[in-house]
């Protein structure tokens, strides 16, 4: 099959009666509002994530008095900073999604912007994973203090169970993220090389 063989299929696809269904009233409706907007569906998990991070940071700040040693206080501050950075990254992602687009641009130019934004997004995901590793350590250290005001060293199997579980979960999550994005990342880089 060659490219010119595909032409007839392309032409036929446009001529099928099922596809020509745009009446004046439907077009009118479509110009008024986006009744099937996907943006909300995409931004909801991001908003939930940001809210959890902010609430977490707030919770640690409110219970800061329970952290009685310099080490616990340092870990508490580190956790708050990580949670706030994660929220900021979430906002950054949302901002990128909602940025005003100029659809009048030539297609190649749009592709260039698209590929660059994709690369930036994946870098952001990598930072997110690294921060989550750090957060896991700090939160595990803080949890017993914050909830029962006890030192984690008092729990016999605490280190073994929580760190092992947390690390395994994050390890597989990061593996999944890098595997999931590797191909798309490569495609974006190739695309960028084509359009620049």
């Amino acid at each position, binding site marked *: 099959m060659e490219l010119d063989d595909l032409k007839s*299929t392309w032409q036929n696809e446009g001529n099928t009666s099922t596809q020509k269904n745009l009446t004046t009233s439907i*077009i009118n409706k*479509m110009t008024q*509002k986006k009744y*099937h907007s996907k943006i909300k569906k*995409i931004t909801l998990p991001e908003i939930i994530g940001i809210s959890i991070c902010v609430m977490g940071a707030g919770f640690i700040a409110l219970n800061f008095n329970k952290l009685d040693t310099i080490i616990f206080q340092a870990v508490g501050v580190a956790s708050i900073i990580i949670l706030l950075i994660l929220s900021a990254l979430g906002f950054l992602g949302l901002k990128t999604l909602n940025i005003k687009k100029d*659809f009048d641009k030539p*297609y190649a130019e*749009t592709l260039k912007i698209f590929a660059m934004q994709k690369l930036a997004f994946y870098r952001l995901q990598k930072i997110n994973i690294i921060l989550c590793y750090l957060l896991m350590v700090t939160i595990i250290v803080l949890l017993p203090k914050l909830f029962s005001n006890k030192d984690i060293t008092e729990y016999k199997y605490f280190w073994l169970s929580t760190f092992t579980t947390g690390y395994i979960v994050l390890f597989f999550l990061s593996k999944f993220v890098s595997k999931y994005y590797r191909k798309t990342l490569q495609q974006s880089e*190739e695309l960028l090389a084509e359009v620049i």
Partner: protein
Amino acid sequence: MDKKERFIAAIKENEGFIYKIAAVYTNNTDDKNDLVQEIIYQLWKSFDSFNQQSSLNTWMYRVALNVAIFQLKVSKKTVPTIPINEQVINYRNTDTIDNEERWKIFREQIGTLNLLDKGIVLLYLDNKSYEEIAAIVGISKTNVATKLSRIKEKLKTQIHKNL
């Protein structure tokens, strides 16, 4: 004819292309309908900025393709690259395959291309001249010719590789 009437007439004239673009850049009916709506919505929003430096048709193609790209981003989807199957290889021998199957094969072929090549091919298949493709995509006419020849070669090679 007022602005809205001109817009509606232009959409009706080009709805075939809008639907086809939406079908190629999405994987199911819901996404396709969403994309059709998004394209029309964005065309209307940008209708005032159409400055007649290019033809209305060229402008509409450009906006439609650009919206399709951003819709991919919003829905966090990529156009899948599907391995070419036996049906594609035997395409010339299957005279009886219906339109649906032909369209499936078409998508499989187009799905192997990157987004830039995909856009160029779709315009070529829609009988756009090299000048028009160059204007819509924003590359030179020579570059369009080079890329199309490379794409044709690529599609041929893929078929042979799978034989």
